[in-house]
């Protein structure tokens, strides 16, 4: 299910004094099974971009093609688009509304018109994927749960649609380190099933760890796209856009200036550890 943006443009309040271009001629192609990290400061167009990918917003120029479906075309079956692409919003737990966890997760599959048996199976599968015990949680009210559990219920509701492409807008925002690692491993496991992932994140460390490719948004333009190596090697350019690089990348730069002979492209803790051990001669297994 490839996703392609062609000259995708979105202007809010066109022809008014408040006119602003949120997306400016964005072009990209995403292949099946890719993990794309989307970074950019607040207001750079990230959220506007992902809302186009499942048709919540219509382009004011250019288009998005999802698996051959043209999202700018009014005759496109939006139900099919939303089955193909699942979108997990920021703070998705605010959107829980049903009386029980089971009903909330079943809401999407029900709208797909599946029969009762299939819906029940989808709910059980989704709950297993987010590690919520069916017997314990199915009949609870979502509002009795902790923040992290609520978020897992909200994500399960999207996974129950079995989307081929999963988009997450800052899925770890506001969570503690434990909750964050939990959500990230859940996303990683879903990706391992061969699904395409697009994840908006403010954490350069997370993006460096998981993404195959990174999109950098700036002032509505797709300013850079490339592998984590290609993107994080351009520390100056990222900083000029108000973005960080992983702390180990900054360290690698400083060490190189101080005469350390390090390999290029150090962006994760594991890479830095390996490089320093080979340089300083640490024991492999202490």
């Amino acid at each position: 299910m490839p996703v392609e943006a062609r000259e995708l443009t979105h202007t809010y309040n066109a022809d008014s004094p408040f006119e602003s271009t949120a997306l400016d001629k964005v072009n990209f192609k995403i292949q099946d099974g890719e993990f794309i990290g989307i970074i950019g400061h607040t207001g750079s167009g990230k959220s506007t971009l992902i809302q186009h990918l499942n048709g919540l917003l219509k382009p004011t120029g250019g288009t998005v093609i999802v698996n051959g479906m043209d999202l700018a075309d009014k005759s496109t079956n939006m139900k099919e688009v939303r089955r193909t692409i699942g979108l997990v919003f920021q703070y998705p737990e605010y959107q829980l509304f049903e009386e029980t966890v089971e009903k909330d997760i079943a809401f999407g599959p029900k709208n797909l018109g599946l029969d009762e048996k299939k819906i029940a199976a989808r709910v059980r599968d989704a709950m297993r994927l987010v590690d919520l015990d069916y017997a314990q949680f199915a009949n609870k009210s979502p509002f009795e749960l902790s923040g992290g559990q609520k978020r897992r219920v909200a994500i399960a509701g999207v996974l129950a649609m079995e989307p081929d492409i999963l988009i997450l807008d800052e899925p770890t925002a506001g969570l503690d380190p434990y909750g964050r690692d939990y959500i990230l491993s859940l996303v990683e496991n879903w990706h391992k099933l061969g699904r395409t992932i697009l994840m908006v994140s403010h954490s350069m460390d997370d993006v460096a760890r998981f993404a195959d490719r990174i999109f950098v948004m700036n002032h509505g333009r797709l300013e850079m796209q490339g592998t984590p190596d290609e993107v994080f090697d351009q520390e100056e350019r990222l900083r000029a856009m108000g973005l960080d690089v992983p702390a180990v990348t900054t360290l690698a730069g400083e060490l190189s200036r101080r005469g350390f002979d390090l390999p290029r492209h150090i962006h994760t803790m594991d890479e830095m550890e390996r490089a320093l051990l080979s340089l300083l001669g640490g024991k492999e297994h202490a």
Partner: protein
Amino acid sequence: MEIIRVSDVYYEYENPDEPADMAVKGVSLTVQKGEWLSIIGHNGSGKSTLVKLLNGLFLPKSGAVLVDNIDTRDEQRIWDVRQKVGMIFQNPDNQMVATIVEEDVAFGLENLGVPPQEIQRRVYQALKAVGMTQYAASAPHMLSGGQKQRVAIAGVLAMKPDVILMDEPTAMLDPSGRREVMDTVQRLHEEEGMTVVLITHFMEEALRGDRVIVMEKGQTVMEGEPAQVFSQVERLKDIGLDVPPMTELAHRLRAHGIDVHGAPMNVEEMVEELCRLKQEN
């Protein structure tokens, strides 16, 4: 001088729906005037409950909380406590009440019946302290998240509190907003001597303070200067907390027999330590 004293405080929720693990179970601590104390711990560790005890939103079931020697259970003086301990919450949008920034900052003072000229003076000073004077006439919804939090801080400063108490003030901000708010807090602390109590998930924010307390299961389990606390990597990880990246790296190198000295907290310190190690090598 001591501004807050918490003595063996217990608090549990009466509502059976609230998870029991959010209770506070026998916490004692003090906050000195002019100090920056950071409190870390994962969700449900009791840290947000503790915060609400510090300004009298919750009252201890046993033990006592004293703010500038006023017991928070003293109903007559609860407004003195609230004036002395100004509070900043997570979501900046929930803290805005007016349609213009300066009115928002003035809101608390107007409620106290402060004379208009004095209000004007304090609002200006408070906005200046957070670097937001040029937005005095702006509408809050036109501001970024970081700017909104700075306005919220100005609103607290205008009340001339002794302590600013912040419950994850940057959790909903992007990295630049987070830095903007923390730089503002740091400047208030260093230049104006403001006492700060900060609850946070972000270890790099706790690094900026003078002292760190780690909460777990309603109790304080670690306490010390940031370098002391964050050098105990294994223990923090057992609790389910992060350590700052350079501390993590030092820990990994040590596990492979490399003799990293001290507890490097940031890139600069790590560079110096690695240069030393390289020369020895």
